[in-house]
């Protein structure tokens, strides 16, 4: 299998994706994706995960089912996503139109010493998603392919999975808020307005 060149930079990718978010709700997987989203600019509609590895996509599912008229985007990493692969089947069967999953795939575990992940060794997340029943699943390598993929994330044509291959970089960590109850409160205020006490 010929390997394509990886050129994209994660912070640019995430900033580009979030530029068109409108009022989409965002869940970020622990580690680098959370720093990337914080670097793009904090937003009360961001729920940053600092734990629960393997759970990001499923949190997105629950949110998408609770808020069918809002776009829900999950931005996570390959290691985090690999730890919860059952999510592919669970999500595919529920068919949430408003859910998009973006995997920022640098093929390594960023927080633990840059060990290679399974995607460095031939595991193809988009192919697995298609096997699970995702109608929209793609791997993106270039800026042009990214541009073509972004509108689909917000077009309620999901569930969608986009794996974006990015280079290995050591970037300054940008820390978003991490206090769980606080994140929860402000996020629910965005989603539910006065209904938070309901």
């Amino acid at each position: 299998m010929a390997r394509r060149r990886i050129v994209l930079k994660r912070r640019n990718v995430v900033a580009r994706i979030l530029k068109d978010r409108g009022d989409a709700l965002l869940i970020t997987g622990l580690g680098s994706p959370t720093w990337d989203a914080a670097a793009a600019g904090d937003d009360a509609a961001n729920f940053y995960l600092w734990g629960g590895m393997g759970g990001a996509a499923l949190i997105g599912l629950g949110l998408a089912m609770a808020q069918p008229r809002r776009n829900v985007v999950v931005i996570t990493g390959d290691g985090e996503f690999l730890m919860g692969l059952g999510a592919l089947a669970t999500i595919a069967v529920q068919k949430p139109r408003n859910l998009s999953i973006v995997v920022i795939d640098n093929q390594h575990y960023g927080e633990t010493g840059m060990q290679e992940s399974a995607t460095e060794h031939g595991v193809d997340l988009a192919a697995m998603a298609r096997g699970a029943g995702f109608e929209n699943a793609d791997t993106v390598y270039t800026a042009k392919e990214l541009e073509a993929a972004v509108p689909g994330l917000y077009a309620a044509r999901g569930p969608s999975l986009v794996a974006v291959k990015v280079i290995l970089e050591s970037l300054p960590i940008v820390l978003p808020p991490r206090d769980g109850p606080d994140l929860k409160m402000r996020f629910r205020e965005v989603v539910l307005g006065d209904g938070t006490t309901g």
Partner: protein
Amino acid sequence: MAARKKESWPADIFRALQQADVRQVVYVPDAGHKWLIDRCERDNKIRAVPLTSEVEGAAVLAGAWLGGERGVLLMQSSGVGNCINMMSIIQECRFPLLTLVTMRGDWGEFNPWQIPMGQAVEPVLEAAGVIVHRVDEAARIGETVAAATYMAFDAMQSVAVVIGQRVVGFKQWGK
């Protein structure tokens, strides 16, 4: 101040595993185990198997032992929670189990999300029938792992060596 001076305890662990003839080292990448993981990956006699989740660990080790090979599961404390139901085969079938756990959420931890599992590791392992050897001094880690290998493989027990965050070191954020 987090002290991450050059420690020899990962090398002490490696020696103890070699002496016990451990052949399969299964792990989810972990910063605390980074040196040990690298060393195992480079070793010709050891098959190092990265897992997508710690939940896979006990099952691989059960298969390894059925096949005549000894193994060890390396993980961070947060992964312990992923494992618990898999421990049931170890208990029921009297397989040996050796696991080395590096702690988060127990000393100088900045991330609140690490606290629940960090605090639950020992009670949860014990509730699942695993003998827990807790170690908070670098100099004692090698001998503790060696002792754990005898209990696991000779006495056919489940044994966890839990390496405290005081030894592993803790991240400092907001610099």
